[in-house]
């Protein structure tokens, strides 16, 4: 069997490893556009803050591909997938045949689409090459505007302050981490960000990047304000890498379409990771949830199914952990669920800075936000992921003295 995997990050590697268990002798080839061995993308912001060294971002040992018996085609770009001929065409002109193909091509950062994005000093942070550019182009002690206060923007802003930059964090929505937090938890994070010296601009839409002699000078906001900056980092989100799939009609605008077995319309082509548009575990609606744990989980299912298993992916459960200088937030599920019978329990322990918000719908836990004390987050996500009815549990998570011992003890 010839297995081909496009992408060698979270989903691609997880799939390849489980596939090796299912088919010990199959030929497994991983293709990656990036020339480096596999590395951890989420660590790039930590690399930026110099909390980790470059030698700590590699996910696998130096002999990883040989040990697992994988062929690695690093630095090769896929330009077309031809399901009819069962081959994948590379930019080099080479065509690689396959029996089973996994598309785990990931996603690319979006740009806000404003004038001045082509200036020197406008960055994104998604790949190691992006980090190299940003690290080299960072004005020491200068001013940086970070566009987008999502998980990457917030962490990048904190990292840049760590590096001695003056940082303005610009967000279109009225709060930081929109869609992930509700206003009360966002206010706690906002306070922390301001305490570290980050200037947070909410309700601020970027209108353009102002340059002088081809270099960034300032970020202009829609309300007329201008934030002086020698660098602008765009972190407004990602879009699936599916352009090369246009011909076989596998992808829609939201990403690659797959069924619960992570299979596309072509039964021999599977998809996993950030390039896939999945289904929300709780609502059953199409949802794009580009998170690391989701990519690994999807990769494991796709990999096993390529090797002959019959596994099903129940759906993506959004979950994020933001941990900055000891300030911890774990959030997931639905923040503001639509529909009837919604109950929200929230409590704020001002003394210890802890905050807990649980969202219930029809007697099931559907949303969670923890600030400060986050150790038990996984238990709540279990309750959420398995959609257990709260009344059947031996302990009610809504009570203030709830702890895991009450579930098992």
């Amino acid at each position, binding site marked *: 069997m010839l297995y081909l995997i496009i992408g060698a990050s979270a989903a691609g590697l*997880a799939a390849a490893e489980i596939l090796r268990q299912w088919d010990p002798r199959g030929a497994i080839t991983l293709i990656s556009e990036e020339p480096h061995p596999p590395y*951890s*993308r*989420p*660590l790039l912001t*930590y690399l930026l803050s110099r*909390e*980790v060294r470059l030698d*700590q971002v*590699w*996910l*696998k040992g130096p002999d990883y591909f040989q040990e697992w018996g994988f062929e690695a085609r690093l630095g090769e770009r896929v330009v077309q997938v031809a399901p009819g001929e069962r081959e994948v065409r590379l930019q080099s002109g080479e065509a690689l045949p396959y029996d089973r193909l996994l598309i785990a091509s990931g996603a690319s950062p979006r740009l806000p689409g404003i004038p001045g994005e082509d200036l020197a000093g406008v960055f994104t942070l998604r790949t190691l090459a992006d980090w190299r550019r940003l690290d080299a182009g960072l004005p020491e002690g200068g001013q940086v505007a970070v566009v987008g206060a999502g998980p990457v923007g917030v962490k990048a802003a904190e990292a840049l302050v760590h590096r001695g930059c003056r940082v303005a964090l610009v967000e279109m929505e009225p709060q930081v981490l929109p869609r992930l937090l509700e206003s009360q938890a966002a206010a706690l994070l906002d306070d922390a960000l301001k305490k570290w010296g980050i200037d947070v601009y909410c309700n601020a839409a970027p209108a353009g990047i102002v340059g002088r002699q081809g270099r960034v000078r300032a970020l202009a906001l829609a309300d007329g304000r201008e934030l002086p900056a020698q660098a602008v980092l765009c972190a407004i989100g990602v879009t699936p890498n599916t352009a090369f799939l246009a011909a076989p009609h596998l992808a829609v605008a939201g990403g690659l379409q797959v069924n619960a077995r992570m299979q596309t319309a072509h039964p021999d082509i599977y998809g996993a990771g950030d390039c896939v548009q999945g289904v929300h575990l709780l609502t059953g609606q199409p949802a794009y949830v580009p998170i*690391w*744990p989701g990519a*690994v*989980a999807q990769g*494991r299912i796709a990999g096993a199914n390529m090797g002959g298993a019959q596994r099903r992916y129940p759906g993506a459960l959004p*979950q994020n*952990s933001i*941990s900055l*200088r*000891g300030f*911890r937030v*774990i959030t*997931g599920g639905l923040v503001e669920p639509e529909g009837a019978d919604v109950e929200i329990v929230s409590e704020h322990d001002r003394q210890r800075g802890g905050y807990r918000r649980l969202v219930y719908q029809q007697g099931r836990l559907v949303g969670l936000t923890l600030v400060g004390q*986050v*150790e*038990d*987050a*996984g*238990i709540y*996500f*279990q309750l959420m992921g398995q959609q257990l009815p709260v009344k059947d549990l*031996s*302990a009610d998570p809504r009570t203030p003295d709830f*702890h*895991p*011992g*009450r579930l*098992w*003890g």
Partner: protein
Amino acid sequence: MKTVIIQPERCLGCLQCRLACAVEHSRAKELVAAIQEQVVPRARLRIYPGRQHLAFPNKCRHCEPAPCQQVCIAGAICRTPRGTVDIDPERCINCAMCAMACPFGVLTYASLYLAPEKAAVALKCDQCPDREAAGRLPACVEACKVGALTYGEWQETQEDKGRALARAFFTSLPASQETASSLPATIRVWRQLS
């Protein structure tokens, strides 16, 4: 793989295991010196008040596959040749992704003498590798006075439990009840537990 097996019904909540665990995971590995260390040694198992006023010891199960290992973005969590799931404090970035994934809530975040430059790293049971190398029991098991924590193959313990259950069932049958009823209740209960 040998593991620490928990029998919550025996736990008294004395917290001796927590003390022993913290001492084992200190630099000195000795109580008097450990309590004076710069980086306060932390216990890696917790005792919760459970239901019906029973104590409930909770610690890492070294799952296979391990959810924490799958979500670790720093590549800090790996399975050792011993079979345990370990966290490398050198690589841990304190991102709390593992707490998000762990279905048992066993992770804590605190500073560790092995990585003194970091404000906190993820901590959980490593099943005392130094002790295993020396042929000794894990610290918590050695400290447990009531048999709530034991060390062995879980399959064997499972079989023992099955046998105990079967014994308890057969002793509860009417025929044997006549002879058993002459025993005091405490002795009967202990026999069923052992």
